[in-house]
């Protein structure tokens, strides 16, 4: 059975075609399997190879002089172009790496610049809002001060704070009032001046008067009919409720 299979295979021209390299890939695969599996096929193939060499030898002609040198120089030239190509490839790779790292660097720089830009933009926005707010304040203050109905009161400190001098502006029509502290008395290290307003029997904290910042500022005060303003000496940082004993000035509107 197997012998028959081998004979059938050898009867085809597959082995001869394989010898000349004219088989298809599929055929070559089949031939190689037969050669590997069956010693008889292998022997035939080896004989065919020897016969081919003998057959080809019978056609040998002295090869031309000088052709060998030409072939060798062509091969050498090819190898050098290959080497040259390799050199170029290496140079190109280095350039590519440099380019990539530069790109990475600039990308990050760009990112951080964008971040900085958005921070600056935000700051400008905040400043703008702040400016608008202040301008609005100033405008309101101006309206109050400029109004003919606005009354001006001079507030002087009592014996506890003789140097205290403040000016209050009250407009009952617009229902707005401001106070401007002109001069502060000398206080102990751990003391501060705090402003209060009594509105409908309740004491409202208007905040600590800072020595530095408040001289040129008008402090807005809540307006109510019959409101009374007080200035007290309190421990540094301010108090939750006014110390009645330490009242240095009151402003009645």
């Amino acid at each position, binding site marked *: 059975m197997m012998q028959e299979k081998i004979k059938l295979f050898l*009867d085809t*021209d597959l082995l*001869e075609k394989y*010898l*000349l*390299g*004219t088989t298809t890939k599929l055929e070559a695969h089949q031939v*190689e399997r037969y050669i590997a599996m069956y010693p008889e096929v292998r022997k035939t193939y*080896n*004989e*065919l*190879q*020897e*016969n*081919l*060499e*003998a*057959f*080809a*030898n*019978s*056609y*040998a*002609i*002295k*090869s*031309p002089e000088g*052709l*060998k040198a*030409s*072939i*060798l120089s*062509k*091969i*050498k030239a*090819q*190898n050098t172009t290959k080497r040259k190509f390799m050199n170029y490839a290496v140079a190109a790779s280095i350039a590519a790496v440099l380019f990539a790292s530069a790109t990475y660097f600039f990308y990050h720089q760009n990112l951080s610049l964008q971040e900085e830009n958005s921070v600056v933009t935000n700051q400008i926005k905040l400043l703008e809002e702040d400016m608008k707010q202040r301008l609005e304040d100033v405008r309101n203050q101006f309206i109050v001060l400029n109004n003919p109905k606005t009354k001006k009161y001079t507030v002087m400190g009592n014996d506890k704070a003789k140097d205290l001098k403040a000016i209050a502006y009250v407009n009952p029509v617009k229902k707005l009032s401001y106070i401007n502290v002109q001069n502060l008395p000398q206080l102990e290290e751990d003391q501060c001046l705090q402003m209060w307003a009594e509105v409908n029997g309740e004491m409202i904290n208007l905040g600590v008067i800072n020595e530095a910042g408040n001289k040129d500022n008008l402090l807005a005060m809540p307006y109510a009919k019959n409101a009374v303003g007080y200035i007290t000496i309190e421990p540094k940082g301010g108090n939750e409720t006014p110390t009645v004993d330490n009242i240095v000035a009151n402003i009645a509107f």
Partner: protein
Amino acid sequence: MSALLEKHIIELLQERNEKAISLLYENYSDTLYGVAYKVVKDDALAQDVLQESFIKIWKKSETYDPTKAKLFTWLFRITRNTAIDKLRSGKSKQEKEIQMDVSDVYKVGVDGVNPDFIDMRENLLKIDYKYQIVLEALFFEGMTQQEASEELDIPLGTIKSRLKIGLREMRKIYIEPMLIFWIIATILL
């Protein structure tokens, strides 16, 4: 070709040592040139074919698998196919140009025959012409067996059997006497 030298050349080829090409040329160029000439039947073309084949051999050396084919079989395939390709591309060019004088070209080829191989040529003549014509059609004309059958007006089965017998005849004429010679020489020495 001694098996040892063949092994050495294969090793050099796989190491991509240029010396391999030098050794290949020294040992195979006459036969391969003969093959190229037999296909293209023109000196200059055969030289081109030989040169291109050797460059292909160098380029493809890493793909050569010694377990699949003897070194010569591989060299022969490359040279034969390069020559057939050359002939085909040349033929399409020639159709537009002047027809070449075949007899002239043939003469040049005969002049170039190496005297060392003249004996072999005589041996070849000893194979029956009917085998020779089939072998040449298949090996040098690039014909398939089907094409050879049509071209030579011989049934396909006969082409197959003449190919096998023809190759076997070659063996009787060339290889076996050599083997006997070597056996006798070995015994005597």
